[in-house]
């Protein structure tokens, strides 16, 4: 996803001279293409994220469109108040990009697990929060974010995520994409869990003949409430899936909508990380299974419960 991001940003920067790239000294072997092409529109502020946000606010107030690049929690939680006061308070056009969202840096330790930021940034007024599911969505999200004026956050995975969209999808911020159709249940995914959701959907289709809809809710704010309500009104169950704390993120955002909506019969469930510190480390896949459980099993349980109820 990070390659898709930087390649797209490079293209955008060719057309839009307002685009600058700032980093807090991260992005080695990723950002070089941009640095070489636009040295005057690139700033490495050093390992100083709070300063980076303030600088971006100053730049943006003159009409520059800064993209800030760093990893995991550094450009988000570390400098949360700067984002709130310097950027959101002033409604400035600054885009924050974090690589290694979720458990991508699983073996690097809990400090590097970016698993609360979607919920926290979602609370900031005017902030658009986007977590694309694959490199195609990353490219499209980057392009759309550049057209959108105002504070934005883009959560990326790491490198070499598979392309999941077989065809070029229509893409708009705040409008979810359906990657698998189906009437037997629904997985609503955000970020890099999209691949897992597709795999489970395909497996259940093959083994049980059930058709599980898969929705990529790449934009968490503004949330596609219409899509969510359509799913809970059409299908027996809906489960949100995110590599994020069970509190505050996609599942919470959907819960808020559903609690007020009424008029639906679907069972609603959240799949995500438990609300506790994780002291065990390992690969992204290992930690997903350890901390969230087996998505396939959860889906089969939901399907079985549905059959028993029927």
């Amino acid at each position, binding site marked *: 996803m990070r390659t898709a991001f930087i390649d797209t940003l490079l293209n955008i920067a060719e057309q839009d001279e307002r685009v600058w790239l700032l980093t807090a000294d991260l992005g080695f072997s990723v950002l070089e293409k941009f640095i070489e092409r636009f040295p005057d529109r690139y700033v490495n502020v050093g390992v100083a994220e709070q300063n980076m946000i303030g600088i971006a606010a100053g730049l943006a107030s003159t009409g520059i469109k800064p993209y800030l690049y760093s990893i995991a929690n550094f450009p988000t939680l570390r400098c949360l108040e700067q984002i709130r006061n310097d950027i959101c308070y*002033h409604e400035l056009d600054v885009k924050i990009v974090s690589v290694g969202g979720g458990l991508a840096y699983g073996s690097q330790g809990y400090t590097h697990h970016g698993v609360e930021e979607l919920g926290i940034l979602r609370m900031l007024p005017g902030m658009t929060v986007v977590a694309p599911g694959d490199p195609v969505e990353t490219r499209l999200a980057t392009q759309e974010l550049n057209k959108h004026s105002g504070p934005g956050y883009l959560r990326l995975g790491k490198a070499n995520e598979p392309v999941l969209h077989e065809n070029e999808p229509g893409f708009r911020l705040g409008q979810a994409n359906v990657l698998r159709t189906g009437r037997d249940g629904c997985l609503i995914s955000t970020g890099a869990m999209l691949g897992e959701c597709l795999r489970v959907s395909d497996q259940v289709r093959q083994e049980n003949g059930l058709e599980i809809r898969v929705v990529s809710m790449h934009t968490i704010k503004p949330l596609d409430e219409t899509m969510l309500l359509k799913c809970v009104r059409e299908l027996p169950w809906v489960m949100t899936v995110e590599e994020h704390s069970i509190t505050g993120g996609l599942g919470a955002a959907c819960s808020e909508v559903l609690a007020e909506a009424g008029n639906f019969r679907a069972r609603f469930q959240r799949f995500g990380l438990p609300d506790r510190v994780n002291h065990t480390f390992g690969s992204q896949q290992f930690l997903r299974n350890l901390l969230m459980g087996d998505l396939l099993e959860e889906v089969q349980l939901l399907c079985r419960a549905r059959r028993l109820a029927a």
Partner: protein
Amino acid sequence: MEFDLKASEDLAARIRSQTLRMVHRAKASHIGSCFSMTDLLAVLYGGLLRVSPDLPGSMDRDRFLLSKGHGAAAVYATLAENGFFPKSWLDTYGQDGSVLSGHISHYDVPGIDFSTGSLGHGLSIACGLALAAKRKKHDYRTFCLLSDGECDEGSIWEAILFAPQFKLDNLTAIVDYNKIQSFGRVKEILNLEPFADKWRAFGWEVREIDGHDHQLIHQTLTSIPFVANKPSVVIAHTIKGKGVSFMEDRLEWHYKSPNDQQLETALRELRRAA
């Protein structure tokens, strides 16, 4: 341009009187912090800053950031005295429905670019403004007024590191060094000394001045950048509560607002000095 000392000191007296009335009416705090920087504001807005109430949003205007956002009342008074908005607005300070908040706010307030209030934010924003001017060849200058207590914040030192690296000689930091922070004397809470040496060691060109000497403030700020390719910092030695005898160098005036009698006494003192 010839510096008119009398006009500058008169402006400062008017700012102090307005600020007093505002803080009194609002029963607000931070009068001491407003008064320690009033003379700096008077010189800056008395003709030194290239800003105009007619074009408060022009690209080439000098940028002024109040990083010590709690000094808002004095800046509102300064802007009103300079015609950025009607003086009648000052009556709304601290009142229900006002656009003028106790920590400086930009929204719907002509002449103010950035809201602050949480300490340690302004200098980073100022670095961004100065960097944009450098890279895009704008000739506006950026001034950022800091408090001494604010320099406890780590983010300030991130910005202090940054500015010399990027040769921001169009950036001037001014520290209102009144030596009192929220809980007591700076040197007893978290000592900044040797303060000038610290800035110098980080790569800034430093001037230390009496922050109440208008002539000296003007002379200093008209000679920036002090050295080409280096950011400038003016450490202004000031007195908290300056201008009103019973407020000077007293911690309590970080919090208290004057009662009716104190207001009268203070206004009388200011009139006598003018």
